[in-house]
Every structure is written in structure tokens, then in C-alpha cells.
């Protein structure tokens, strides 16, 4: 069987998962919080962009507004709620973001409704290239480009800037970092803001490639977490590759008719097998 067409079709979704997974890992490394509300941030961004477009707002402004609001919510949570839970263990901090995810999910489902067939249309949908006999819309290639650029940018940020140094210090040891003068709350807030930015962009792309649905967007976070697990929640290149792999798993399962319907569970099952066989390892927070 020629699987190459399926590989090509998985690029777009893989890029979104990679973007999400990198966004999750940046925050987790720096602040120790796994953000379950990542998908919900993306959902808010995508729905807002869609709504503004329907109100006649120019496209670029509608996307920018969506991404800005998602980033703003992330900033506010990182500034207001996250510091209050900073002394609790990692599970509690992660569970708290589930609360935020539910609030946003409920709000989106209330206002925009569930199960309505909708897609966020982007101008890049009109252009297309053919790869391995599959017609790929420009959006999918844009997704890949954006994911590469953003992941690369964050890599540079971590390696060459003062903020990046602070983030790496926090990932190693929060208490010692605080003791030697790293501004913990400031770094945490920057990490939250970056997380919101990644979520906002990933949400708009997923709203186009998949569909615009509160549940589908909110639960983007689960395959993204699965992808991040391949990187043991600590390595950025690993998170990127994990995301691409998760997208490929979903796309390749379509090739097998018996399994095609189960494809969206593919990344979870792969991540579960990874954890059972390879284990959680010694990544950030593995000892807690």
C-alpha cells in the first residue's frame, strides 16, 4: 500500500499538534504548570476571529483580535490565579487549569453552540500544492511554516536571551532560581503569555483544517499532551517532533479502513504505550 499520500495529508494536523505541544512544553518547563486550557484558549481565538469576520471586520484584524484575546486570557490567568497556586504540587496546578478550560468551553458552547457545521475560512485555502498525489491547501503549508518558525523562535529565545536564561533556570530548580534572583513571577507570566499566543494561532489553524467546534477545539489539548509526552514534557525539539508524529499517526490510520474511525484516539494510545514501555523518564518534574 502506498502510504505517502496519507503522510502528506497528515502534515497540516501534525504542524498544529507540534505548535500546541511546543506551546505546552514552554509553559510546563518554565512554570511547572501543564495547561489543560490550551485548547480552550485556541477555541476562543478561532471563534472570535470567525465572529469578527462575519461582522465585516477585515481578516487580518479579526485574526489578530482572536490571538490577542487568547493571549490576554492566558496572561490574566498567569498573573492572577497561577501565582496563588504556585506553592501547590503540579497535579493541583494542572487541575486548576481544567477549571479554566471548562469555563471557556462552557462559554463558547453557550454562545456559539455545539455540533454546528462550521469552518474558519482562510485566504490560504485558495492556493494549493500537490504532494505525493494529494492536494494540500496553502493553509497546511502555512501551518507547517508557522510551527517551524515559532518553535525555532522560542528555541532562540531560550538560548540567547535573559528571559530564556530565566526560563531554563526555573526548569532546573525553582527554589534555587528564586534564591539567586530570577524574577519567578515575571518569567512565569511571560511563559503564560507565550502559551496563550501559541494557543491562539493553533486554534485558528485547527478551526480551519478541522472544524470550528467548542469541543473539538477545547480537546485539542489531549493529542497535544500526548505529543508532549513523547518529549517527556521537557524537550522543545522533542515536542515538535512528537506533534508531527501524532499528526502522522492520525493520518496513517485513515489508510486502514478497520481503524480509520478510531484515528483520533491514535495519539493517545501511542502516548500510553510510550509511557508504559519507555516510562516517564527523568524529564522536568518527573520526580515529583
Amino acid at each position, binding site marked *: 500500500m502506498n502510504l505517502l499520500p496519507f503522510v502528506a495529508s497528515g502534515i497540516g494536523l501534525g504542524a498544529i499538534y507540534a505548535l500546541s505541544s511546543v506551546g505546552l512544553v514552554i509553559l510546563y518547563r518554565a512554570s511547572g504548570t*501543564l495547561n*489543560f486550557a490550551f485548547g480552550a484558549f485556541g477555541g476562543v481565538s478561532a471563534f472570535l476571529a470567525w465572529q469578527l469576520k462575519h461582522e465585516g471586520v477585515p481578516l487580518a484584524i479579526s485574526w489578530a483580535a482572536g490571538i490577542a484575546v487568547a493571549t490576554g486570557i492566558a496572561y490574566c490567568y498567569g498573573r492572577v*490565579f497561577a501565582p*496563588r*497556586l504556585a506553592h*501547590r*504540587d*503540579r*497535579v*493541583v496546578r*494542572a*487541575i*486548576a487549569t*481544567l*477549571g*479554566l*478550560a*471548562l*469555563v*471557556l*468551553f*462552557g*462559554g463558547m*458552547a*453557550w454562545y456559539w453552540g*455545539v455540533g454546528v457545521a462550521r469552518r474558519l475560512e482562510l485566504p490560504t485555502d485558495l492556493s494549493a500544492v500537490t504532494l505525493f498525489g494529494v492536494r494540500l491547501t496553502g493553509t497546511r503549508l502555512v501551518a507547517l511554516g508557522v510551527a517551524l518558525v515559532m518553535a525555532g523562535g522560542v528555541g532562540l529565545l531560550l538560548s540567547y536571551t535573559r528571559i530564556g536564561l530565566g526560563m531554563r533556570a526555573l526548569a532546573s530548580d525553582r527554589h534555587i532560581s528564586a534564591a539567586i534572583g530570577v524574577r519567578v513571577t515575571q518569567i512565569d507570566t511571560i511563559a503564560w503569555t507565550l502559551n496563550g499566543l501559541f494557543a491562539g494561532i493553533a486554534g485558528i489553524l485547527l478551526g480551519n483544517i478541522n472544524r470550528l467546534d467548542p*469541543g473539538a477545539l477545547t*480537546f485539542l489539548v*489531549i493529542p497535544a*499532551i*500526548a505529543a508532549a*509526552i513523547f518529549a517527556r514534557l521537557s524537550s522543545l525539539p522533542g515536542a515538535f517532533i512528537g506533534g508531527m508524529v501524532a499528526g502522522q499517526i492520525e493520518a496513517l490510520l485513515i489508510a486502514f479502513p478497520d481503524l480509520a*474511525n*478510531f484515528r*483520533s*484516539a491514535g495519539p*493517545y*494510545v501511542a*502516548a*500510553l504505550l510510550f*509511557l*508504559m514501555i519507555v*516510562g*516517564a523518564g527523568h524529564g522536568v*518534574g*518527573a520526580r*515529583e
Partner: protein
Amino acid sequence: MREIANAGVIPMTGPVEPEISPTLRAAAIVVVVGVVSGIIALTSGGYWLSNFTQAYCMTLAVLGCALLYGQLGLVSLCQWALVGVGAWVSLRVYHYIHPPFFVTILSGGIGATVIGVIWGLPALRMRGLYLALVTLMLAGAFQVLVAVISFPVGGPGFLGQVGASGNDRINMARPIFASSDTSYFLFVALITLLCIFLVEIHRRSKPGRAWALIRKNEQMAAAAGIRIVFYKAWAFALSGFIAGVGGALLAGLFGQLDQTAFPTTTSIVIFIGMLLGGFEVWLGAFLGGILTRFVPALLIDLNVNTNAGFMIFGAALLFALRDPLGLGGQLTLLAERLYLKFQGKRAS
């Protein structure tokens, strides 16, 4: 001296021994569940009775969730999926052999026990955040699985599906002695009571002590000769069993189940319900479980969009995390204080 010994357990107010006998605690469980269930059975019917029956099934899910979190500190975000497993197995067994209802319930419980232990296997190697992630992914995977295979409705083959028309779907029958809505509700209440006792007995006997030590320090527990893997697996088995029983009862309530009935969000809401109710005491699970169904039911009754329920639970979670006692814990503490005060007065 006694005050130091009791610090942090029950704040003492009078010169009395802090004695609340196990018999009295057991009696309190029977009285509270009995009175609440009695009031519900007498006052509600139709819509509300059905919702309270569902609420009791959710109580069972919360009970298992609280067992894992309260005793071992393990976060399970797949409890509602385990209810789904119990429901699936019980429907499957029912349509194969039409056994007595108790056998159907047991089959649901055993099915979810097996799956609960298998799901718990990763937990034997990991804890904390990773367990929460694993269970959330399992809940997600179950949602995908059940959306494809659906629930058996008496058709041929292992999956038990019927044609697209759906006219020849067969309902699971309720027990003869509990065929009416009210009697079925009371039956569910009785099973819930039994499950609460099952957990309480575990908490107050050898497994409970083992869990307490494991939670305190695993190395210490191992040094003390406690079989850690065995007791952790036991906790998963017990919480799976109770959830599975809840699933079978839910299947009995509706007769057949829809593949959309077990979304991941409900598993999350169950966890939140547990935090709101409180995970240290049985009353927490009981109240938390009722709350998880009561809030959406009330919203439907008031013609408010049910999605508002998610917002309420989400916001409540952010506050519940700051109060580890929960509603049930607060009430229990209050009741204990009042009781001890009363005893103190009588003694003097």
C-alpha cells in the same frame, strides 16, 4: 496533652473523650442516605426522579474517584468512562443471557474492575501529573471507542447492534421488584448505600491502613512490608467496581444507552464534583455526586443553556482547590463538633 494529640483531627471544645463509635458513624450513613433518598422518592417524580437516579449513579463514580484521590492522592480523570465500561459490559451480558438483575450489576462491576486494573497498571509506575494525563487520555480514547462501537441493543454479534431503523432495539429490563421509577430509585439508593459501606469498610480495615502508609511514604510502606503494587491495584479495582456498578444501574434506568452519554467532560466534572463535595469523607462523595447531576438538571428545568453548567463547575473548581475539606467535609466536621458538644454537656 490530649489537646495536642487531637490537634488537627477534631477540634475539642469540652472535657470529653473524642469518641464517635464506628456503629454511630455507620448509623449516620444509613440515616442520611435513607432520609435524603426518602425525601426524594416522596417528593419527586418523572424528570426529577430520573435525574436523581442518575445523580446516585454519578455518586458511585465520585465515590471511586474520592477513594483514589483521598486515600492515595491519585488523580483519576476517567471515572465516568469506567461507568461507561460497566454499562457496556452489563448491557452485553444482559443481551446474551438475560440473567437476574443482580448478576447484570455484578457483571458491570467486574467488567469495570478488570478494565480499571488494566488502566491502573501505568499508575503503578507513575503518579502525580502523569497519572492525571494517562487517565484523561484514557477517557478521551474511550469516548472515541464508544462513539464507533456504541452500546449493545440486543442485535447479533459481539457489538449487538441492530439495523439503521432502530425499531428492533431491545431495552434492558429492570428487576421485577423495582420496575416503577420510584422503586427503581430506591433500589439504586440501596446499592449506593452498600457501595458506600464497601468503601468505608475498606478505609477502616487493613487496606485503608496500607493506603494511608503508601500515601505517606512509599519507601516506608515497602519497608513495613506492605505490598505496594497489590494495594494500589486493589484501590483501582475497587474504584472500577463501584463505577461499573453505577454503569449497570444507569443502563437499567434507561434500558439502552447512547454513545454520546460518556463524554470526557463528564469525567472531569465528576472530579470537580468530588473536590466540591470533599474527598476525605463519604458524605463528600454523596453530595458531590448529587451536585454533578443536580446543577445541569436544574439549568434544564430553568430553561438555561446547560453549557452554563460547565462554566459553573469550572469556576467552582478554581475555588474548591483552596478548600480541601469540601462541602461534605465541612458538614461532617460541624456534625462531629455538635455531637461532641452535646455529649460533653450530658457528661457534665
